[in-house]
């Protein structure tokens, strides 16, 4: 196993080949904001919040899908990055219908937390107010597309951990949305095992347990990481 040496924010580090920049940063106590990243499932670089500057590269690179390389000089928190991150969060708020005041996830929402983290006190971009649906055809859960940020955590968790692949992504551009089955009502999808892993994975109030009311719903994020560890490393307790 070979080791790569590089610097993150000026601090020299040595880390195993094949590690992502995000993992390397976290292992060395450097915080990089993320949204589509979730421990236990694969990374897709969808949200671009973890963009970092790498010397020699004219483009910003997503830390979650960029592997460390020898001699890399990475900066994770420059003014440019801070500005881009705030803009990304503003885009997410302006693009959907995120009405925090009447959301089941109010106070337990990763998008809300990110807005605080990036210092967003208002959106500089005009709100779109798109017309979107809510599907409550499932017995126990519901999906509110108004609150979906298209991180695809539900898609990956259902495919990679549960193995049911109920969720997928359909359409293009502004019409892009996550779908269940072949764009059927969720309740009509036989493949759904009602395991609730997508509910635990969702960063916002988009996928929710029925019966939850405003600010009431908390998720068990560690459950997914626990399942992965249990299977891989036979750690059956937490």
């Amino acid at each position, binding site marked *: 196993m070979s080791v790569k040496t590089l610097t993150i924010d000026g601090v020299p580090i040595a880390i195993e080949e094949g590690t992502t920049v995000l993992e390397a940063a976290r292992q060395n106590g450097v915080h990089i904001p993320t949204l589509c990243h979730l421990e236990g499932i694969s990374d897709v670089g969808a949200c671009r919040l973890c963009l970092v500057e790498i010397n020699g590269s004219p483009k910003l690179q997503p830390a979650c899908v960029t592997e460390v390389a020898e001699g890399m000089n990475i900066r994770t928190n420059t003014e440019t990055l801070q500005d881009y991150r705030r803009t990304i969060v503003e885009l997410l*708020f302006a693009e959907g*219908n*995120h*009405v*925090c*005041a*009447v*959301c089941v996830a*109010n*106070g337990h929402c990763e998008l*809300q937390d990110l*807005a*605080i983290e990036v*210092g*967003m*006190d*208002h*959106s500089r971009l*005009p*709100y779109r*107010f*798109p*017309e*979107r649906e809510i599907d409550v055809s499932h017995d126990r859960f519901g999906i509110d597309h*108004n609150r979906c940020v298209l991180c695809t955590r539900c898609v990956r968790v259902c495919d990679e951990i549960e193995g049911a692949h109920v969720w997928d992504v359909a359409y293009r551009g502004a019409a892009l949305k996550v779908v269940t089955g072949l764009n059927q009502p969720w309740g009509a999808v036989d493949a759904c095992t009602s395991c609730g892993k997508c509910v635990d994975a969702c960063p916002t109030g988009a996928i929710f347990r029925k019966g939850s009311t405003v*600010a009431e719903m908390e998720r068990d994020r560690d459950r997914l990481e626990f399942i992965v560890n249990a299977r891989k490393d036979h750690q059956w307790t937490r």
Partner: protein
Amino acid sequence: MAKIRLATIWLGGCSGCHMSFLDLDEWLFDFAEKVDVVFSPVGSDIKDYPENVDVCLVEGAVANEENLELLREARQRTKFLISFGDCAVTANVPAMRNMLGGSEPVLKRCYLELGDEHPQLPNFPGIVPELLDRVRPVHEMVEVDMYIPGCPPDANRIRKAIAPLLEGQTPDMTGRDMIKFG
């Protein structure tokens, strides 16, 4: 030192932000020593927005023509305008009607489809303000100098945001205590 001329206005909102302001309780006595409330739905009985206002707290989204007119007047006559609460900052709950596609479907649903005995659209020009086609946050209509998000912002947040202004300082609007939506 002359007192600060303070106004508060209430556009398309539930008055929750004003209620939260009143939650400042005894601090309001200290506050009253430094400000003159020159216009406010909860603090004065003046009908016309005055000239030369130093600070104005704007609650609510811009939902109808009356809101827009008052907001423009306030902007013109105020030095420092504060977008106060989620409806003012994001358009929040009042803007949920935007997703229904304009004011007409909303009015039809409320007054015709759900009208009990004499369904009719409200129409009294000059008395009943026309709905704007879209509910908008304050800063999309006029320039805003500061934002206090929250639904409503709690009294502590309000105090931490406006107390420094009274001393001529800028508050630190960062972190969960100061800028959480919802």
